[in-house]
């Protein structure tokens, strides 16, 4: 589907795409969260052979909105002897990084017919930056502060334990997650998420998760292993079952958000679901072909890319819910053992293997722009001149 690049004076459709994308992703994350919560409750209810929410709206669809209204009008409790500024800052710090990380997430692509008749394919992404995945990693590494500070500031030993657990857990699982992401980057050859998605164009076998090795012609499950490591680490990073140790209700009351009520609690809740959506979006873009259809022939590729992205996102949310309904919570030492003794060595081995395959079996055609400057541009990376030397 090609859209004419309408223009109104100096503004044309192509130039407002980042703003449209920003509004879309922000609005999507904020508005879809109630329905994700509803989806989770209904699916878990079905898995546990009970009815689930069914009073407010059709099939309980408005239950979460009713809960939100209730939270909004609840009393805003503040326990004695809390560290006030940090206590109020923590929920914000838990929500904002998750929302900001969505800025570098490309979720669809749009074809525009330019004024000169050429057709240009533009990605729908708020910030098409060439360090896209690093930007998201940086923001997701900041997310732990919300939980740690909530645990510390609320002056409650259960909260503190939850915060401690969370910081240890998120540091531990950030390593395998980063190494798995690095593997995916190596397979795609770019840090820019748009380029990563474009490198997976074609059928399902071109996705990084299922990628065939074109050099040897056999199924090479390295992407599969790294992708599974990412999926495990992403569940741990978002503190979801079976890795929900920071808020384990059977041992820590509610962990880091024990002392939070009303909208502050709602913000933690929103932050958790927003980061679920964002890490699922990264999984989609990095391993499962982003907005590309699984099969590149008629009927499949008629469906717009945004729909495919949404379908894949829904699949990962479904996996989250499925895990929560079926797996018991891990013991803490088991959690640490899995992170440090299983996932980390495995991800290093996979990274090494992918790098080796890359170096010896692929002859990559480097674009002229990359291979041309053998020396870096002068003035940027040459040893710094002595002060006053530039005159």
């Amino acid at each position, binding site marked *: 589907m090609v859209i004419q690049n309408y223009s109104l004076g100096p503004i044309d459709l192509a130039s407002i795409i980042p703003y449209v994308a920003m509004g879309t992703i922000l609005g999507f994350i904020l508005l879809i969260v109630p329905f994700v919560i509803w989806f989770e409750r209904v699916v878990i209810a079905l898995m546990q052979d009970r009815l689930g929410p069914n009073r407010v709206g059709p099939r309980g669809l408005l239950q979460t909105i009713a809960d939100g209204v209730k939270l909004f009008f609840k009393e805003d409790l503040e326990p004695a002897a809390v560290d006030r500024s940090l206590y109020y800052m923590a929920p914000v710090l838990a929500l904002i990084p998750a929302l900001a990380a969505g800025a570098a997430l490309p979720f669809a692509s749009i074809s525009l017919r330019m004024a000169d008749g050429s057709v240009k394919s533009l990605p729908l992404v708020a910030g098409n930056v060439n360090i896209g995945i690093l930007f998201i990693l940086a923001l997701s590494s900041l997310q732990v502060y919300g939980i740690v500070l909530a645990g510390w500031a609320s002056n409650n030993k259960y909260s503190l334990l939850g915060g401690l657990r969370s910081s240890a857990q998120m540091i531990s699982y950030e390593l395998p997650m980063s190494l798995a992401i690095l593997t995916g980057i190596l397979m795609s050859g770019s840090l820019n998420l748009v380029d990563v998605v474009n490198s997976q164009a074609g059928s399902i076998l071109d996705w990084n998760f299922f990628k065939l090795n074109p050099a040897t012609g056999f199924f090479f499950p390295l992407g599969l292993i790294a992708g599974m490591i990412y999926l495990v680490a992403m569940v741990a990073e978002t503190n979801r079952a079976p890795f929900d140790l920071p808020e384990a209700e059977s041992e820590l009351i509610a962990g880091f958000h024990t002392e939070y009520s009303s909208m502050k609690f709602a913000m933690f809740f929103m932050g958790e679901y927003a980061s679920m959506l964002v890490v699922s979006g990264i999984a989609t873009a990095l391993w499962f072909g982003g907005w590309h259809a699984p099969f590149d022939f008629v009927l499949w590729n008629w469906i717009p890319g945004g729909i495919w992205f949404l379908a894949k996102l829904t699949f990962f949310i479904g996996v989250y819910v499925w895990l929560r309904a079926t797996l018991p919570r891990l013991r803490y030492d088991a959690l640490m053992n899995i992170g440090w003794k299983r996932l980390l060595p495995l991800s290093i081995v996979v990274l090494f293997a992918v790098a080796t395959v890359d170096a010896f079996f692929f002859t990559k055609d480097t674009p002229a722009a990359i291979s041309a400057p053998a020396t870096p541009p002068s003035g*940027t990376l040459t040893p710094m001149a002595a002060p006053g030397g530039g005159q």
Partner: protein
Amino acid sequence: MTLAIFAFGGLAAVSVVSAILMVANRNPVRSALALVANFLVLAVFYLTLSAEFIAAVQVIVYAGAIMVLFLFVIMLLNLGSPEALKERGGLQAPIAAVLALIFFSILGAAGALGTALPKSQATHATLNTGGTAETIGRALFDPNQPWLFPFEVTSILLLMGIVGAIVLAKRRI
């Protein structure tokens, strides 16, 4: 131009204030947080200099990993209360003042405090490629560049640090 100066001024103010807060705060957790704020502002400074890769790495490594470990240790050792780390006077403040004086006089002698600073030679082209992961990777790993050896030495230093930590923590493995 003026907008850039205002942006720089705002960022500089935040970075100086957060640095002062980091030293002056009685509460270790707040000191750590002020340091995180300082790291974040530093990352934005890198961004304004078109060094986007360094900016992202700055946030990931310092703000995201090292400072979380700091907070973890502070909370684990229960140093969170303001009284836990009270320092008695001593010679620290006067020595720091002398060192700061020496530092600023060196800066002044080198001409860094005046207005006659050398102008940047960067063009749009160098700015667009200068801070990418690719340029930095080529500078670090290309044998024709002078940075390969320092890079290797630094990585051996880090390896020594890791081995040393394990030896100290686990005498018998």
